């Protein structure tokens, strides 16, 4: 049996074939301070299991509900087996459960229940973004607080876990521990590299490691609430990011990386340093590194031809670009801060340098007129010649006005929400109701597909169909209506 101070678990359900990063980061952090830690990815174990009832288990763990109540026992048994198995392998003082989204809540609760049943003295900690989201519960830590009151867990950590977990192991209390009073870490260069030693990286079908270069965002886009969570934009030096990638690739023999950042090129200075070091590495390396993630559009005056060349040589690929709209007026209202000219230069450079892009679009922004919508269609028509590098167009569903976003706050007096984040009507553009937005989404999907773009459609339509049924039955939309079990969707949302 493996003794350790803390066992850190990734739990279902996150629909990803990449190793989840949080347990690896936390292991590295606590080990740096002299504690012993082990990690275990229960999420991937479920996803790749040969269990006959896998679909049921995934559904049940994601939503905690089923039509077939006779099957609930199967889920209970599965979790019970996992709890028994874990406690046969490990003998930890603490078990930390990484609750990545609310879709990990059901499994986490069941697991805690079974762990406590088998070993009542075990100390259980819940942490992660999934603690904070549950519609209808009044405070951001209400779910975790309830779990604590029920005796399922001993502690919970809201938001950033690195320092809080150390404080918990050391003193049993601190900021962000059993409260919402967490403090953002300002020096990311101080973090050790994530430790994947306990992961069997060979088994993951996607040979990619996640990497974090920054937290927060330089922009204040009106539809986004990221700045509410991360009060400051903090970033690592470009050199340190590149060094981590080189080090991790040598250690784990994985050569592709995916950034968790809201923007990879938020700080151009750090970005330039990063691509310079990595390009130099790639020029002589036998196994060349590649990377991708979310990227902001910059014109040629800001991201020069040399930057583009280095982007390519450093391994930049599949950059997710928040284009949002083909109308400059709409983007101006969104505070995206790039012009049509910037956009044209950006795509042209990507094409010249063969850097692949994925366009992220927003359908039905409050100020979007029919003319603006047609400008988006025209943009795709104009960019047909760049299809070799525009590998995917992500249209999503239709814009939801999220609480806490500038859009929700600025338009509070002039937007009727109609019982859901997706159901709004803006007083100054009343014809753009939910039905009209779905129409535009359908037309955009069909036209882009006709032009030859690879468009993600089916799941978005299913979601829209579902939301439409809620809307027309005058029910109320809540957070669980938005299924974000996929890792990429979570990043984008």
């Amino acid at each position, binding site marked *: 049996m493996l003794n350790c101070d803390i066992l850190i678990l990734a739990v279902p359900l996150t629909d990803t074939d990449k190793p989840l990063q949080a347990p690896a980061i936390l292991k590295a952090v606590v080990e740096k301070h002299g504690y012993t830690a082990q990690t275990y990815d229960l999420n991937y174990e479920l996803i790749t299991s040969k269990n006959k009832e896998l679909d049921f288990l995934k559904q049940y763990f994601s939503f905690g509900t089923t039509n077939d109540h006779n099957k609930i026992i199967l889920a209970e048994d599965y979790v019970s087996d996992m709890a028994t198995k874990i406690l046969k392998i490990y003998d930890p003082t603490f078990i930390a459960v990484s609750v990545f989204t609310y879709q990990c809540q059901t499994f986490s*609760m069941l697991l805690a229940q079974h762990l406590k049943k088998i070993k009542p003295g075990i100390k259980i900690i819940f942490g992660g973004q999934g603690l904070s989201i549950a519609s209808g519960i009044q405070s951001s830590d209400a*779910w975790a607080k309830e779990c604590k009151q*029920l005796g399922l867990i001993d502690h919970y950590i809201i938001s950033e876990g690195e320092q809080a977990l150390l404080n918990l192991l050391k003193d049993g209390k601190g900021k962000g521990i059993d409260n919402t009073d967490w403090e953002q870490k300002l020096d990311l260069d101080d973090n050790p590299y994530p430790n994947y030693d306990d992961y069997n990286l060979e088994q993951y079908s996607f040979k990619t490691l996640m990497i974090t270069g920054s937290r927060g965002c330089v922009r204040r886009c009106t539809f986004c609430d990221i700045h509410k969570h991360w009060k400051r934009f903090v970033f690592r030096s470009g050199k340190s990011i590149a060094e981590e990638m080189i080090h991790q690739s040598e250690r784990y023999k994985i050569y592709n990386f995916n950034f968790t950042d809201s923007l990879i090129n938020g700080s151009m200075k750090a970005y330039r340093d990063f691509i310079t070091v990595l390009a130099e590495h790639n020029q002589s390396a036998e196994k060349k590194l590649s990377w991708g993630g979310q990227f902001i559009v910059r014109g040629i005056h800001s991201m020069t031809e040399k930057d583009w060349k280095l982007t390519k040589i450093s391994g930049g690929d599949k950059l997710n670009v928040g284009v949002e709209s083909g109308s400059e007026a709409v983007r101006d209202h969104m505070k995206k801060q790039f012009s049509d000219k910037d956009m044209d230069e950006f795509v042209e450079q990507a094409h010249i340098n063969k850097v692949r892009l994925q366009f992220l679009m927003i359908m039905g922004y409050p100020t979007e007129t*029919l003319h603006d919508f047609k400008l988006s269609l025209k943009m795709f028509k104009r960019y047909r010649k760049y299809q070799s590098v525009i590998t995917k167009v992500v249209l999503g569903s239709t814009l939801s006005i999220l609480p806490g976003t500038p859009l929700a706050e600025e338009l509070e007096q002039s937007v009727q929400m109609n019982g859901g984040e997706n159901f709004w009507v803006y007083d100054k553009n009343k014809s753009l109701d939910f039905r009209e937005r779905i129409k535009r989404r359908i037309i955009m999907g069909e036209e882009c597909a006709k032009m030859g773009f690879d468009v993600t459609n*089916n799941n978005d339509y299913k979601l829209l169909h579902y939301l439409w049924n809620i809307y027309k039955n005058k029910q109320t939309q*809540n957070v669980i209506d938005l299924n974000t079990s996929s890792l990429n969707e979570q990043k984008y949302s």
Partner: protein
Amino acid sequence: MKVKFDINVNNYNGGPQISIYDNDNLVFENIFPKKGPQSFEFETDSKFPKVLKLIHQNKNMKYDTQLKDGNIVDDKGFTINKILLDSFVLENELYLFKFVTDDGLVIPKNNYIGYNGKYIINVDSENLLKWYLNLQKSFINQLEEFDYNKFKQEIFSEGPNLVVNYD
């Protein structure tokens, strides 16, 4: 457990009389003579599962409803706007509970209590949180089969059709 009700009262002929039972124990009782929105709250134990029954009683269906030309113009009764069970809010979920009149008539999807009878909240789980999350998620199982063409037809069946000429 702290329980709070937000209600909107119609106070014709003295206002409604409300009792609340936690399983078989009476935990709250009052008459609400004042018209309009108001709240009441009480404490009860946190042992689950349990059945909370809100009972509306002593309404005389003959005299406690004011009619004019066959239309109801005033009434003794109330609308339940919101219920709080500790930190869990029941608002949209109010329509998921049933109301059973004293005559045995079951009225589903209803938050106006105009008859004598029982509004029943059955917390059929040992864990309030789990029960609450399941309740919220009940819509997910009710989704009809998705058919793109049918969906498109429905969406485009009303309102002006978009012109997609964007040359």
